[in-house]
């Protein structure tokens, strides 16, 4: 738990920050920004929820809470009705052709 803000934090995951140079919340926002780069292609968006969960927002107003990356990918798949495939050539073309 964070001593300053009293947040419980996210469940452990292998992709958690390797060092402790940045505060956990800041690291979490970096991860969310990275996820949003990928999800933008599908017109989905993720926001932080209480430093512990992810709030997934669909283009039509649908919302879902996920605690952890694995649950988040599952929630995004449920919302889209198809899996989020990082090998999908269309996704890769879009990421290549639309720089930040």
């Amino acid at each position: 738990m964070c001593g300053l803000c009293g947040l419980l934090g996210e469940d452990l995951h292998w992709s958690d920050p390797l060092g402790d140079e940045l505060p956990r919340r800041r690291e979490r926002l970096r991860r969310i920004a990275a996820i949003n780069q990928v999800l933008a292609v599908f017109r989905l968006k993720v926001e932080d929820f209480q430093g512990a969960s992810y709030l997934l927002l669909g283009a039509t107003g649908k919302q879902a809470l996920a605690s952890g990356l694995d649950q988040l990918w599952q929630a995004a798949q449920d919302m889209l009705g198809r899996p989020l495939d990082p090998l999908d050539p269309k996704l890769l073309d879009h990421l290549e052709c639309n720089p930040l």
Partner: protein
Amino acid sequence: MSIALNVITGFLGSGKTTLLKRLLQGESLGDTALLINEFGDVGIDHLLVEDIAPDTVLLPSGCVCCSIRGELKEALLTLLQRRERGEIPAFKRVILETTGLADPAPILATLNNDVQLRGRLHIGLVITLVDASHAVLQERLHPEWLAQVAAADRVLVSKTDLAGDCTALRAHLRALNAGTPILDTHAIHSGDQLLLGEGLRSAEPAIEVSRWQLHQTTTASHGTAQVCSLTFDQPLDWVGFGVWLSMLLRCHGERILRVKGLLNVNASNTPIVIHGVQHCLHAPVHLPAWPGSDRQSRLVFILRGLDPALLRRSFDVFSRRFAA
């Protein structure tokens, strides 16, 4: 203090129980708890080792697959409780012998994901026995064979006396699971030899890095498996890499039999080693330092039914995106 859980797997009849029975007679496995997963109504393997290791716990309902994860958890928790109550000696490691039909991935997932087990047990070594006389046929007919070989941290070739020349088999195993030591069961005389190092956590860091640097893997197909090797010189963005790999494992986990890598990441000055089997990736291990000036990152995937070229492109696109 976390206790190592070592997994001994291998197809039916590859000699797992024979090896364990031989090694349990020695002193070096004296402080080992043994779990045996037996397929069938009567657990014969249990009886075979009973006289030597009386604390053997038999998982009764057969194959270690997703459906009995709970049972594996119960067996492990019971073992730990009995140890704490002093009913059994304070063992310092656990060996789990799987059935010959088991895919090791769910065992690793159980240990990784269960909050009651995590922190009390960690994965030591996955040791896979390969029956030299039937390997070719087993690989062709049974998908479990490949999953077991791909998950191995150490491969033991058994029945070499029956099979004759095993050079081609060894070369095939080396190509499938590069960098993994391939030994002969006849050359294993003690438990210490079998479990030397007991996994990455206690491996000598300089040797671990050298092992990666010496074993250059090339992308190629080997039977039904494809080995995909990625190398890159620039430090990797750890956050972006985590997003890419977690997404990939979520979508294609059952087709990624193994992923392992030595990584140079921007968030760490020291090498990071990752290991995963199917959907399950272990916590990354930090090695203390790079032994030389070579800081190239290496990632190896053992795939079944995934196009390595597409994987490479996806990795390149994502890493360029997140490096920006």
